[in-house]
């Protein structure tokens, strides 16, 4: 029983990070109809920036803030300099450009920092509390839940209660009409990318201390799990992203814990196939909502 509890919390903790990352992917999809395959690489780049600052100044939190700010900047830059010019006649163009960006970012990071695994310490202890003799959560897990929860709440508030959020939604849903109504569509798009990249950077900073170390390919697995989660939940749906992330995290934890670590990816593939066969647009996706 306590193994089950431990696995549940471990799965939820990982799942929370996947949810955040999947949210970043969904944000960009809703805004620009592109799956940002470069999200993982962008998150790694900002994590490197964050940890470099943390090592130089001795303050993890300063590095943390730098990473998130870096995400904002990087997202805006990528949108303005690269994505804006992608031929939109096919959604596949954006995918291929993003893949190119991944190679560039990982190559440059490797050239600057080398490919060795840099130890990336966590800001809170990762030892688990014992509640009634059962090792459950650690302080770090609680921090992860809090951070992701805050992000979800903030984004929801932004999109549903602020006028900026309304403008962003309008720009994504009906760009021509919005332009007529005076909404700066291009600017809203950039803002969307910046926000999404910041969320991705947050997810990246949360996941790095749980890995063997920071290295240019550190977020590849995270991207794959998060993308799977987003697809599972439906690329159109933020609720789907969160649900998908938690679902994938739990599945990986249970299957990994009970059946062995190597079987876990297969379980996710099977889940993906089953869901997509029945609902090709994901669990919460609106079937044929938009024609792009």
């Amino acid at each position, binding site marked *: 029983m306590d*193994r089950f509890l*431990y*696995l549940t919390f*471990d799965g939820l903790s990982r799942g929370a990070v996947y949810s955040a990352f999947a949210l970043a992917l969904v944000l960009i999809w809703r805004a620009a109809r592109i799956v940002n395959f470069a999200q993982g690489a962008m998150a790694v780049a900002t994590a490197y920036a964050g940890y470099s600052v943390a090592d130089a100044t001795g303050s993890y939190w300063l590095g943390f803030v730098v990473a998130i700010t870096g995400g904002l900047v990087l997202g805006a830059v990528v949108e303005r300099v690269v994505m804006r010019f992608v031929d939109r006649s096919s959604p596949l163009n954006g995918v291929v450009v993003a893949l190119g960006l991944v190679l560039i970012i990982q190559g440059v990071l*490797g050239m600057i920092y*080398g*490919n*060795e*695994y840099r*130890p990336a*310490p966590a800001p809170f202890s*990762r*030892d*688990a509390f*014992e509640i009634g003799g059962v*090792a459950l959560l*650690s302080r770090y897990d609680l921090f992860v839940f809090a951070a992701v929860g805050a992000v979800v709440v903030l984004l929801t508030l932004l999109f549903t209660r602020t006028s900026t959020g309304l403008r962003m939604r309008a720009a994504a849903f009906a760009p021509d009409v919005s332009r007529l109504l005076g909404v700066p569509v291009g600017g809203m798009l950039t803002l969307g990318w910046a926000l999404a990249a910041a969320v991705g950077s947050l997810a990246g900073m949360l996941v790095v201390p749980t*890995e*063997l*170390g920071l*290295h240019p390919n550190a977020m590849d697995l995270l991207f794959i799990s998060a993308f799977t989660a987003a697809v599972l939940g439906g690329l159109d749906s933020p609720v789907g992203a969160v649900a998908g992330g938690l679902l994938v995290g739990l599945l990986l934890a249970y299957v*990994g*814990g009970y059946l*062995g*670590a*190597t079987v876990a990816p297969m379980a996710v593939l099977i889940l993906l196939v089953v869901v997509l066969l029945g609902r090709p647009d994901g669990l919460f996706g609106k079937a044929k909502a938009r024609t792009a």
Partner: protein
Amino acid sequence: MSLQSCQGWWRGGRTGKRTATVLAALLLAAGCSNGNSNSGGSSSNTPGVTDNSILIGSHQPLTGPAAAGYSEIAPATKAYFDYVNANGGIHGRKITYKYLDDGYNPANTQQVVRQLVLQDKVFAILNGLGTPTHTGVLDFLKTNRVPDLFVASGSRTWNQPDKYPGTFGFNPDYTVEGKILAAYVKQTYAGKKVCFLGQDDDFGRDSLAGVEKVLGPVAAKQTYVVTNPNVGPQMGAFKAAACDVVILASIPGFTALSIGTAAKIGFKPQFVVSNVGSDPRTLTKTLGAAAPLLEGVVAAGYLPLDTDESNPWIQLYKKVNTQYNGNAAFDNNVVYGMSVGYLFVQALQAAGKDLTRDKLTAAVQKGGFTGPGLVPTRFSAQDHSGYAGEQITKLVGGKATWVGTPYTTDDADGAVTAYTGAAATPPQNGIPTAQ
């Protein structure tokens, strides 16, 4: 289907100009690579050898999950060769050591070794690192008759004189080490539950075979793969089985990961670690703030300890490290690298001035080298394995300390016996003379 589209298909239509540019660029690139083909010259048809130079190659994990610690080995070996070159080289030849990164990925090892042998035409391959990586190139090296010396791994695969006459090991066999570690556990932790975590390849399998020869079947066994840096399920299973002692056949990154993950779930067994994954400085760096977890960890070694200032070999290595290795951090990986270099130079001396590949392998096979090891090497016509045994160490106060005496044993069912020979001292100038 129209004629035009068929022709367009083959002529490339509007991509014609682009095709031309790309092809031109490719030719340029091919020209660049062609001019760079570094054959190192050859004298009397021996690849890689001229009257004043020797070119040797290696594949090393300079990046990737195994780079922690291991990436320091080849630079240390090179530093020792630079020291020897500065003192005139061997029989008037200076040694050039070209080591390429394979990222501990067997597929890259294939590419890299082929490049070294076919394009760079190296004289020999030295200290190829990794059990999974090196296993794949044995046949290629044998077909091309390249001496494959002092493989950086303890797999029994290197000890097959009939099948691979040019391949020689260096590390003690993992089975030998497993038996010695198990003998210590049997003596010190009699009656306790013993579990085993090993890499999912010959390294882990050979080690487990040795452990079970002495202790019998272990209470629980798990494996890990280098591509999956999450050992939570494995540690969880050990905790559920209530293991008292956990033997690790793991590379340094995964030793740290296992110890850290176990602490995270509140599981604190006695860890006993293979020599290849136990360098204290590497583990401390990887564990960071969790370094105190290393206290009391048991491991084993067969070369002088990096912290042993009074040992003449360490003094020699430190001198070389400061002058020729850019004063890099001095740890057991550096000691290992320089010991490999020392042994190779001994082999070169023994092979004589008229250097050929066959003469080199014959010299190694003759054996009888004395060096920094606590126990002798076993090179002979029937045995291509490296060092014959190890001595137990224990981590106290962040430093490894020797426990008891060195032991030797074999791969089969021979007993684990104490070794009482005296340790050798290095020559005055640190460069071996011909024997």
